[in-house]
């Protein structure tokens, strides 16, 4: 295992990270996550959930810097476009749910992933599938044309058992470093980890780094599964097969070495109904995940305007109806206005109800 150090609130011990600016480790009382923030000051809210207060807190962190980083592929302009598409179609859209503002507020957010190096020494067994073709026929008969035969080729797989020994080295196998890794990835979509580059300290400038919640011991079962998957794929290649199933390996994993990979995201937020709503964006693909609230204030105002209009129409109709006793055509217009007034009155609450029912389906917890 690599050296783990207790990192105090200041980052003096992280000399090898070669940080461009001073960074602070804070812990959120609301979501429980720890982050590495730029600067020396402690912000008012957690940079991830934007809800809870944060406090400086020592945390266990590796001294060595991340080994690799998946670079950002989404520029602020591209982010504005994806946010535009994402927020389109929200009725009574809050003023703050606006791409320009969201882009202005966005900051870079790095999600940690473990990279494991190891040497696998052991034995394996699997069924290896080989593709082959068989020749079949489809014949047609008609009283006029007689028989016509057509050759059809069918693809099939022949499964054969294989067993063997393996001694292979696997470097930088990715494994989750966060308890909510898969939940985060479900929100952000897949990352193409093949695009990773070596870590450069400048990339962290102004960004927030999430601190792992799974230590190597806790991350090992998933890391091992990932290593075994790679070994399985190589055993398939070694056997010359096209498919593999039922891969079992009994091995020793020697020379384990753990480093980190940072994958890119953006965090931004908007305020609505007195709450802060975080929005997460995949920094590589631009996939957006966040609550899209309707503005209750806008909806209520619309409902109120409609209500006033209904009352006004109704009253006008009533007056005209009364006038009808003197001038009969006024009674007809009055009657029509009365009906219109009632109809508008009936539909007036609709915007408020719609916004309420839309918003009640959205829970902040779902996005944290």
């Amino acid at each position, binding site marked *: 295992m690599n050296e783990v150090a207790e990192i105090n609130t200041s980052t003096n011990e992280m000399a090898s990270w070669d940080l461009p600016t001073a960074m602070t480790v804070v812990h959120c009382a609301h979501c429980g996550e720890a982050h590495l923030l730029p600067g020396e000051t402690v912000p008012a809210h957690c940079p991830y959930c934007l809800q809870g207060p944060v406090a400086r807190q020592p945390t266990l962190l590796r001294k060595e810097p991340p080994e690799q980083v998946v670079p950002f592929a989404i520029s602020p302009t591209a982010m504005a476009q994806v946010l535009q598409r994402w927020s389109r179609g929200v009725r009574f859209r809050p003023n703050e749910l606006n791409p320009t503002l969201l882009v202005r507020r966005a900051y870079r957010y790095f999600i940690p992933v473990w990279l494991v190096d190891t040497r696998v020494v052991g*034995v*394996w067994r699997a069924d290896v599938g080989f593709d082959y073709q068989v020749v079949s*026929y489809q014949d*047609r008969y008609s*009283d006029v044309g007689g028989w016509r035969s057509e050759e059809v080729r069918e693809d099939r797989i022949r499964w054969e058992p294989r*067993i063997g020994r393996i001694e292979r080295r696997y470097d930088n196998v990715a494994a989750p470093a966060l308890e909510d890794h898969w939940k985060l990835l479900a929100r952000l979509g897949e990352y193409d980890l093949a695009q990773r580059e070596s870590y450069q300290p400048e990339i962290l400038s102004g960004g927030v780094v999430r601190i792992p919640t799974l230590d190597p011991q806790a991350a090992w079962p998933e890391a091992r599964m990932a290593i075994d998957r790679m070994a399985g794929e190589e055993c398939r*290649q*070694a056997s010359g097969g096209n498919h593999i199933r039922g891969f079992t390996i009994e091995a020793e994993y020697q020379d384990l070495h753990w480093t980190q990979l940072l994958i890119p995201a953006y965090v931004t937020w908007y305020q609505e109904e007195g709450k802060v709503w975080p929005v997460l964006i995949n920094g590589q693909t631009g996939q957006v995940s966040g609550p899209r609230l309707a503005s209750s204030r806008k909806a209520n105002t619309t409902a109120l305007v409609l209500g006033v209009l209904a009352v006004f129409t109704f009253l006008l109709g009533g007056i005209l109806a009364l006038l009808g006793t003197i001038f009969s055509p006024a009674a007809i217009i009055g009657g029509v206005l009365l009906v219109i007034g009632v109809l508008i009155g009936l539909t007036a609450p609709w915007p408020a109800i719609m916004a309420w029912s839309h918003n009640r389906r959205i829970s902040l917890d779902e996005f944290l």
Partner: protein
Amino acid sequence: MDHMMNDVSSVSSTVGLWPPPQGFAPVPSHVAGIEVYAPAPEEKADDKTHTFKCRYCGGSIVYNPEQRRLTCPYCGGTQEIAAEEVGQRAAEFEFTLEAMEQARYGWGRERKELVCESCGAAVAVAPDVLTSVCAFCGSNRVHARDVTGDMLRPSALIPFAVERDRLPTLVAEWLGRGWMHPPELRNVRALRKLTGVYLPFWTFDADIRADWKAEVGTERVERYRSNGELRTRVVIDWHWRSGRVHVPVDDHLVPGTIYTSRVILEKVSPFDLSALVTYDPAYLAGWQAKGYDIPLEDAWRQGRQDMRALAKRACYADTGSSHVRNFRMQVDFSNEQWRYILLPVYIAAYTFEDRTFQVMVNGQTSKVAGQKPVAWPRVWLAILAMLSPGACLGLLGLLTLAVGGIGVVGIASGAILFVLGLIGAFVVLKQARESEAV
């Protein structure tokens, strides 16, 4: 990624997966650092020539149908054959591109020179001959070629169950049967060129799904008025109908050689394939055996033709009517499988009145079939006898026509009898012609 290329033989010898189960052997690996073991291919015992000699006296031993084992004609010593009776479970193969390609070249073109293990003599044999007797020391040998790969060796065979000694009696009995042959046939005893030979056959399995569409007619009796008279007639109403039939075909046999009469082969069929045993060269010791000369592709074409004719009949039956027109169908073959087997047949010839006739005996069921000379005067006499009652009655009717109604009855019954006689004559003539056919 740097790979460690150490010797992996010292690794993990204690874990449960290791060592590989019996019958596994190393195969080439495409990735350094990974060893691959696969089930070892069955030893190609058939590649070489087997020479069968008695372990007691050293004489040539042969397969004995009566005892179902190898016996020595000199000292009486016997040897068991360790083949399994597999019946219709005998290994079958799919129509892979590889198999079709291999089978196209059959047993190769060249003659192979074999060296006798007993006396060292070199003998040339034709490529489709599976057994031979050394001309110098007389030892029995069985050889199968390597040129065509595993699949194109016979996968199973039915051993001879009928002894050679029974043949003259069986054939004589068969020759004596039937009235349309010369009575002197009963006395033919001498069989020439009597050979017990394993003949090559292909068996085919397939699931056939056939969709048909046709105009199907239903009969309806219609009343109509003609010249003020109420009459009835049958009219056919046509409707478009469609349907689907499933015809599973199991072990359809197609001969693998052109050198024997297909007509006679069909007559000695069927063979009971439940008696199939896994191929063992010991069954061929002392017998002749022939490799196929009709390649898989051609035999399968024939097999498919037979099967689709079967499917067509099934579709016609599915229409449920004898009135069908504008019939069309589509036949889908699936789960097609084949195997190459050897079946036992005795081939012989006999001479009668200076002509040679072929005869074949099913080596499993003892069914006899073949060419039989026909006593044509007998046949013509029979035909005459069949036609004459009708003709005579008709003539009698004509003569008595002057008398009135009775004559008409005579002519009508004469006509019916004559037609029946014609049908009978046709059947007899067909039988007689087939009896001499090859």
